[in-house]
């Protein structure tokens, strides 16, 4: 009985149909009678699929970053894309969408009314969060050291690490699952908002970020306001601009805000 390494070539030849008919049937007989061989064949099949899975995932991360760059250059925005307005809401439950629309005053998302200069301005000012996430991850880490490892914390951590690695699709999937169990979790809602923003789903981003701006217990209200304002500038129709200005003005008036300078500059460009 040969070991796994020595059998790999023969197993692959069998899987690729490269054995002669005699060799093929002889090997099939071995698979049926020798459990170890059967396990090795299944193992090779799984490993090959796993390698392809990992490679595809790696490739998708690269493609996401290309997409993200093109998003910032407003490549995906044009009058032709009006139908895309519908997609912005495809994952939001109807009631939540309505609540958001009423709260934001966005009763109409008129197509084709976004100012193209705002797209450039957005691209200039928007940077994915790299500061807060470090703090949040450190906090989760510290919590894990102090107490028994919490599986829920681990799930949130994995989602945030995906965000940190620019793997926004994976971050979105994991955050979505986490929010199913903990719909009120502020950190998960904040990063879901940022993830959606990064993926160009501005209306969804607003839906997650806006409530956080007024929640007393949320420690990163300034960040939420800043990213919310940026997202609002990308909503078609005048109401997005009104909302953006409202939150930018709040940041400008707050002398303790780290975003005061940026908000002032952004507002002056808008006007």
């Amino acid at each position: 009985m040969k070991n796994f390494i020595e059998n790999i070539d023969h197993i692959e030849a069998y899987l690729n149909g490269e054995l002669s008919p005699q060799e093929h049937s002889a090997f099939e007989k071995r698979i049926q009678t020798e459990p170890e061989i059967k396990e090795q064949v299944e193992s090779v099949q799984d490993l090959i699929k796993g390698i392809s899975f990992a490679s595809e995932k790696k490739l998708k991360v690269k493609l996401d970053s290309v997409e993200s760059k093109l998003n910032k250059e407003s490549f995906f925005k044009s009058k032709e894309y009006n139908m895309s307005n519908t997609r912005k809401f495809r994952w939001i439950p109807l009631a939540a969408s309505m609540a958001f629309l009423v709260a934001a005053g966005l009763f109409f998302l008129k197509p084709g009314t976004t100012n193209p200069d705002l797209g450039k301005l957005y691209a200039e000012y928007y940077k994915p969060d790299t500061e807060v996430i470090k703090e949040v991850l450190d906090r989760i880490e510290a919590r894990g050291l102090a107490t028994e490892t919490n599986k829920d914390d681990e799930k949130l951590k994995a989602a945030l690490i995906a965000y940190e690695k620019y793997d926004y699709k994976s971050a979105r999937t994991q955050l979505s699952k986490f929010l199913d169990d903990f719909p009120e979790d502020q950190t998960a809602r904040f990063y879901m908002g940022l993830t959606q923003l990064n993926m160009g789903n501005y209306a969804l981003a607003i839906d997650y970020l806006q409530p956080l701006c007024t929640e007393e217990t949320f420690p990163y209200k300034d960040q939420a306001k800043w990213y919310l304002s940026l997202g609002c500038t990308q909503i078609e129709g005048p109401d997005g601009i009104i909302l953006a200005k409202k939150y930018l003005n709040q940041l400008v008036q707050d002398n303790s805000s780290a975003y005061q300078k940026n908000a002032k500059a952004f507002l002056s460009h808008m006007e």
Partner: protein
Amino acid sequence: MDSQQLVKGLIEEEHWAFEKLYKDQFNPLKSYVLRNSGTLDDAKDLFQETIIALMKVIVKPEFKLNDNTKLSTLTYSIGSRLWLMNLRKKKLPIASSDISEMNEDFDTGQEGLEEKIEYEAKHQLIAESLKTMGEECRKLLEFYYFKKIKLKEIAEMLSYTQAFVRVKKNRCMNELRELVTQNPD
């Protein structure tokens, strides 16, 4: 830049090559998706799937671009068929002019959503284990099993003998198998 350079850039997974492909090929496919019950988001997802399927085609040693096979035609052909397959699974309407493009036998290596979810769960662990391996093993396994590059060509790329690459590849497979067995969760 000619198509050959672009193909080379894509195989090497260069950022500029992907960007060029988006700029040249995204709009025609997007129009196709919008015409067939899809949204811009669907078009973006489809374009990524298309690039992955395209990569599997262009890395094959027998693949050659000629006057009859333009990269744009190939991309559009793969993308539109993938989208029709998606629609068929979702049972959404297809514009009548596009029905003729349906092809039952078209194989792009893509799978249905349910299989995809199962596939992801099952192979996540292998992917995680792969991350902990050395760079050379990861590259070798990716070249051979994902990109389907022949051992002889890998040997040339890495300046080794073919025999050495074969032994190394099998050792890496064994190492990966052991890593997976050690971390069954």
